[in-house]
């Protein structure tokens, strides 16, 4: 401890002045300190913090009694100067230590309370406007188009209201075929037909382009079916056509298989069943191995392991002739299936009428 100096009382006066004012913060020092702080509400703590700040300004600032004391050092008798200086510095250090200890204790408490107050529920939904949804038929159609475009096909379309030539004659549909009857096909008052299959686009495409050609035609078609869970008088079909030299049913099957593998996975298999379509000869319906059970049998495939998808065949020579393509030089295949049906399968729909009711609760489910 330094020796007594003459200015000792002034030093003591500064200490006492500080300690008197600091007295109310004393509870935030020592053993009880943290209990004292934890009891503070955030508004009290903030006030106290501000007050400690004021105290610091008043007792350690440029105009404080402590500052004056330090200015006195030069005026103290030379023999006491060192001792006085030392005591003044000790006092300053003690005051600053007291202040900082309390300041940081309350300061930390305030910061803790702020974190607590500003805690977020990160599970609340983010802020974004409700998004609309694409129609399931659009989703499926675009996916199919993407696959076939990658396989070298051009997407084509034609009128939805057709002449008999495109809807029937050019497709080799016999005059007496039931499909021509007003029971099955819609007719306008001027005698035009609503196209009953997208095969009409085959004809337009073959008139527009010369072989070799690869075309798909997705589009709306119309048949006079009363709406029920599995029928709509309007639905979407996709027609595919390839005409080149030396094309066989093997190419047809390979193409259909490749498409279905890209859509449903590499394990997909296909099979042909002989069938009849006026515009193909030979004709076949095609099935593919159930994508849900991979052929083992399940509810989706009604236990058979196979899902019926569409019709296909080698383009009938009469159809080729109708568009001036020589069937001895070129052969081709065509296939078609329902996009709506694929929607039903892919999304597990149980009622096809849902597709055109536009119930928001339905549409919202597709993304």
């Amino acid at each position, binding site marked *: 401890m330094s020796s007594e100096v003459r200015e000792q009382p002034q030093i003591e006066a500064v200490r006492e002045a500080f300690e008197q004012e600091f007295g109310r913060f004393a509870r935030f020092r020592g053993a009880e300190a943290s209990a004292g702080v934890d009891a503070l509400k955030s508004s009290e703590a903030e006030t106290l913090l501000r007050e400690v700040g004021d105290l610091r300004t008043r007792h350690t600032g440029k105009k404080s009694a402590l500052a004056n004391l330090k200015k006195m050092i030069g005026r103290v008798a030379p023999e006491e100067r060192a001792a006085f200086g030392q005591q003044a510095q000790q006092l300053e250090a003690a005051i600053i230590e007291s202040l900082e200890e309390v300041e940081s204790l309350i300061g930390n408490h305030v910061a803790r309370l702020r974190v607590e107050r500003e805690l977020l529920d990160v599970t609340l*939904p*983010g*802020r*974004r*406007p*409700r*998004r*609309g*949804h*694409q*129609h399931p*038929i*659009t989703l499926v159609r*675009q996916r199919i188009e993407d696959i*076939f*475009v990658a*396989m*070298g*096909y*051009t*997407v*084509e379309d034609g009128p939805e*209201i*057709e002449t008999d030539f495109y809807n029937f004659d050019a497709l080799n549909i016999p*005059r*007496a*075929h039931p499909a021509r009857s007003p029971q099955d096909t819609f*007719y*306008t*008052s*001027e005698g035009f037909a*609503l196209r009953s299959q997208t095969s009409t686009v085959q004809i337009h495409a073959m008139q527009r382009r010369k072989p*070799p050609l*690869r075309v798909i035609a997705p589009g709306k078609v*119309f048949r006079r079916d009363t709406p029920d869970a599995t029928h709509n*008088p*309007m639905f979407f079909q996709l027609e595919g056509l*390839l005409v080149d030299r030396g*094309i066989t*049913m*093997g*190419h047809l*099957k*390979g193409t259909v*298989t490749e498409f279905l593998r890209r859509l449903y996975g590499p394990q997909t298999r*296909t099979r042909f*069943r*002989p*069938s009849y379509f006026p515009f193909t*000869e*030979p004709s076949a319906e095609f099935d593919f191995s159930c994508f849900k059970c991979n052929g083992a049998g399940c509810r989706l495939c009604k236990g058979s392991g196979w899902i019926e998808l569409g019709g296909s065949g*080698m383009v009938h020579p009469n159809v080729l002739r109708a568009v001036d393509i020589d069937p001895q030089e070129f*052969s081709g295949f065509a296939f078609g299936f329902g996009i709506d049906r694929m929607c039903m399968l892919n999304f597990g729909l149980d009622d096809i009428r849902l597709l*055109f*009711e*536009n*119930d928001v*609760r339905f*549409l*919202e489910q597709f993304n």
Partner: protein
Amino acid sequence: MLMNISYNWLRELTGARLTAGELRERLTTAGLEVEAVHEAGDDFVLEIAVSSNRPDLLSHLGVAREVCTLAGGEVRWPEMRAAREEGRTESFTSVEVEAADLCPRFTARVVRGVRIAPSPAWLVARLQAIGQRPINNVADITNYVMLELGQPLHAFDLEKLNERRLVIRRARAGERLTTLDGVERELDAEMLVIADAARAVAIAGVMGGAETEISGATEDVLIEAAHFAPASVRRTSRALGLQTEASDRFERGIDYEGQLRAQARAAALITELAGGTATTDAIDVYPQPLTPPLVPLRFARVRELTSLDVPPEDSIRILGALGIELAGANGAGRSAADAGGQGAASEATFVSPSWRADIRIEEDLVEEVGRHFGYDKVSDTLPAANVAGEYGAHEGRRREARRALNACGFDEALTYSFIDTAHDEQFELLPGLVRRAGESSLVTLNNPIIEGAARMRPTLLAALLESARHNFNHGTRDVRLFELGRVFAAGVEAGDQPRETEACALVATGVATEEGHAGASRELDFYDLKGALEAALAAMNVSSVEFAATSARHLREGQAAQILLAGNAAGVLGRLADDVAAVYKFKQPIYVAEVDFTSLLAAGETSVRYAPLARFPGVVRDASLVADRRVTFAEMRRAVLELNLEQVRRVTLVYVYEGERVPEGQRSMTLRIEYRADDRTLRDQEVDELHGRIVNTLEEKFGAQLKR
């Protein structure tokens, strides 16, 4: 058409030892789609879906030929000889065919002294198993023979025929006949009838008459088996709304050589089961016998079309088993007999059977060979890639528009292309769809399937609003829908093909919501609809679009805008007029838009040209002006831009305010004007001066007052 086939019956005709399950599998593989197999007593019934080109399969005989082809063996013909025969048919009746064009062949045979009674149990069981209703022995036998051989027959009570003779002629206009079902029918002069000396007694190929039918008192029976022209039977059946087992077969085409065989079979069964004595022959009126067509086949063609390697002898075997006989072979100078041999003929000629009108060209033979050789042997091969794929025109722009509308909260809808006639005149149509003033451009269906829905839609809005209604009915009142699809208008000249235009329609109502949040963020209004449309246009990068106030039939006055595409009208948007809303029972405001999407797709795109970045800072000044509320933003903006001040770089809207502190009928609009020079920093004084000129102009031009 579904045909029920009895498994036991089929076994009698084929001797095949396959189980019903095996038959189902094999027949389906060969192209006869067996939809179901069910048990019926000690028998099984196979339900076969018969395609329209194979009427021969509407008989057990036809299916038996397929079974023999796939399982080997030959068709076993049933008993064809009558138990008792005596006298020629012409001694008891006569037949005159007046309308030979509608009746290429007519046969008649008589069985005298029958005893009409219920059929024996085995016959009843067999008919019932495949869904037929037994009547009496003679009627049941005609039915049985049809189901067995495919030839419809009819039995007349000979006694009841005037002068005991038949005349096949067209009906007299207005002639009446009560058919077996008890309905009196009026005939027209195009219908073929079987008549006696006095009157029609049957509608040829469709149904017999009640007065001459077999009854308990019948003793002498006249059996008729004919070939009627398919088109004639079809027309008559449609015109009378009367479809029968007979008409189904005649329409599709029967075996044109099958009549005498059916007569023989019927005579055998009647004499066995109902007693009596058959005549020894049948009257056969067949003035112009049909000759079976010959069809060539190059054996290599099978492989060329199917990729299947079928040896010629297998092709010949398969075709032969189906009754498609080899007529001759050539190539390498071989004879027909050698055609099946090793290194045999490269091509041959086959006879198209009288029951197979679908066998006419080489490809038809290829299919017969292919399907029986087995499509399961076709392997997957990909054609060599030789061209690049291509999306439909504007597919990219279409997808962008959809995505933009989705982002604005609109769900994509699809509605029927035909709408109710009640919507006629409700909506203002797209500009291109109107034909000529005063002339209807609507396209009408003759045969709608949904009652009233006889119009090919000239607008998407009618059905889209119905969809909104559907949602309301199911408790969803916040609905934003859009549809892309074609609308229709009659061709420019009468008889022209209808015109098809792609349209895009939007419907918005209710409140804006946030994903995952319940409750409204605010009410939707006109500017939400316009914003969505603008978003779609921006996504499509369509240039030169403008909106202008307009009026439209289905839109509320003062809340309707026209969309102009390079100055041309391309659709309207706005709030649905109250009278139209009332039709749909809407009580909340609905905003609708419809634009000509074909024109949008065809419109030019804005090309991007880089503008150098400003080297000197700009200055922004706002001006709040109170003016009549009819003064539009577009007008104010144009007035500023028309001053042509070089330093004015941008005029944008800050906000619009109406209400307190703004006089009624007026509103306050705050514009933000951005000033900048390319070569220096503008001084405040300069900007003050420019801004002052602009404010003065707006004040003078629109009677506006600057709000300070």
